[in-house]
């Protein structure tokens, strides 16, 4: 049987992750693409860490950071009233961190691909920094921004290791569809597991299709 609640939670988590990460990743990607500063490589390497770190390892450290023994954990309890670990908020924080490279890297490449003199030219046309961002940078970097959003969304839907570590398996709070699939397999309910796996597969395929078709369509105009 299909667990709609788990699917809805996954979609909610992915939606919030994309919504919150988009502005932050845009800002970080622009800085990394255009600003030269000491320690830039180090920052890039740190942001790429989630790509190579085993999800359980990342989840373990996040769990430690969220716990009652950490300053962050205590501060969260003091403000919100419940611990960060094993809550949707904790899951969201973990998801934001885990998705940093998936959101930033495609945007950074897209910003780097904008010809060097185009932004100065816009400034010389009298366009304000905001207009330059909205009318020049964003349209030119759009394929990269879109593929970053799609990747982040799809990746969050399917994330398992980190979610299990910091969120556990609380229905309606932290039980995402990936966890639900695992849970159903453990219970030998392969029919439900298979159904939900197929839904996740379809969603992932759709996401990849969107990302590829937009980047392909943008290619011929990429030069100039």
């Amino acid at each position, binding site marked *: 049987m299909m667990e709609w609640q788990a699917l809805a939670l996954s979609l909610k988590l992915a939606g919030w992750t994309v919504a919150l990460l988009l502005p932050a990743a845009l800002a970080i990607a622009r800085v990394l693409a255009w600003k030269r500063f000491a320690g830039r490589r180090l920052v890039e390497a740190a942001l790429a860490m989630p790509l190579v770190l085993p999800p359980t390892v990342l989840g373990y450290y996040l769990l430690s950071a969220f716990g009652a023994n950490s300053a962050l954990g205590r501060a969260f309890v003091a403000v919100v009233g419940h611990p960060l670990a094993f809550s949707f908020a904790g899951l969201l924080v973990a998801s934001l961190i885990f998705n940093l490279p998936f959101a930033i890297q495609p945007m950074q490449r897209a910003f780097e691909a904008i*010809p060097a*003199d185009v932004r*100065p030219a816009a400034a010389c046309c*009298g366009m304000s920094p905001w207009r330059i961002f909205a009318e*020049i940078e964003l349209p030119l970097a759009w394929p990269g921004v879109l593929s970053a959003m799609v990747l982040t969304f799809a990746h969050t839907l399917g994330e398992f290791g980190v979610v299990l570590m910091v969120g556990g398996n609380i229905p309606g709070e932290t039980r995402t569809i990936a966890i639900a699939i695992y849970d159903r397999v453990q219970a030998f309910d392969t029919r439900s597991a298979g159904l939900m796996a197929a839904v996740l597969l379809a969603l992932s395929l759709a996401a990849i299709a969107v990302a590829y078709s937009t980047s392909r369509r943008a290619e011929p105009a990429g030069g*100039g």
Partner: protein
Amino acid sequence: MAAEGRLFIRLAQRAPIPLAATFDCAPGEVLALTGPSGSGKSTILRCIAGLDRPPDARIECAGEVWLDTQRRIGISPQRRSVGLVFQQYALFPHMSALGNVVAALGHRARAERESRARALLASVHLAGLEHRRPVELSGGQQQRVAMARALARDPKVLLLDEPFAAVDRVTRHKLYRELAELRRQLAMPIVLVTHDLDEAAMLADRMCILHRGRTLQIGTPHEIRTRPADALVARLVDLRNVFEGVVRAQDAPAGRTRVEWRGIVLEVAHAAQFAVGTRVAWTIPVGGVVLHRRDRPSRGERENPVAGMVVECVELGDDTTVGLAVDTTVGLGVDGPAAAQITLRVPTHVARRNGLAVGVRAGASLLAIAIHLMPWRDSGRDAQA
């Protein structure tokens, strides 16, 4: 000096590119910034546009101070009213030609932007191509869009950064004519960056010779080619006949200065600023060297006569360039053998009639009035350039 519409520049910095440039440009004037690559030409344009900010500078245009580091004034590029044509044009690739021009019309009322953009595109001969995107335009057409976009701002100064470098030769000559035509309607100072001396001489009212960010000389193309400030300028503007000599006598009453060059004493138009015994550089335009006719000697041959062997004889259409290795009594110095070679240009038919060819002996006169003396100092200091 009247500041109305005029551009004044003073820039100084050490890194990343050393700069020590000072010049001005009058409304309607075309000033060419010329020099080898890496001499800071483009950096200076970027400073005027406000894209780069040197630590010690003052830029004033049309009575407005755009940058004054001492008074901590620095206006953003957006508020400088500059039209800049970039080297690779830097058009907005996702916008049509019309969109590119409209983008620079933000200071005008919304209702008139499109019609103004169309008029500008028509003025650069692009009517009918408004809806093409940059990739769908040729190099020359892209340059015209960039020009229209630069003018769209109603700029107080027009800056052109190597605007002809990226197009083929035929298109370039067409664009030269268009710029020459266009500039008659433009009332703002125009600063043209180019490494091409012929281009600068053709299009500019004055040239500013730059070397490692330093202004070496500012003057009309003719002044700079015939009266370079020093040997370095002479070399940078590719003068052929640049030599070294020593002042031997000053004869003010006769209006003559005598310079010894490799044992030959040359009579030169009086140049009082050089004391007897001073080491100088001297140059003579190829047109100031007159070939002696082998069949019929004439009176003019008494003026600074030199004789030697023809070592180079290159026919270039109607003209023939002749290299004469001059007989000198003093042995070849540190300059090496090429330094004693004088280049002259004669009509090809004259070269043929006189039987000029490599290995033949010939004589020539160096016209005193065409010889220009320069301080020696700079050529030594920057010789490695």
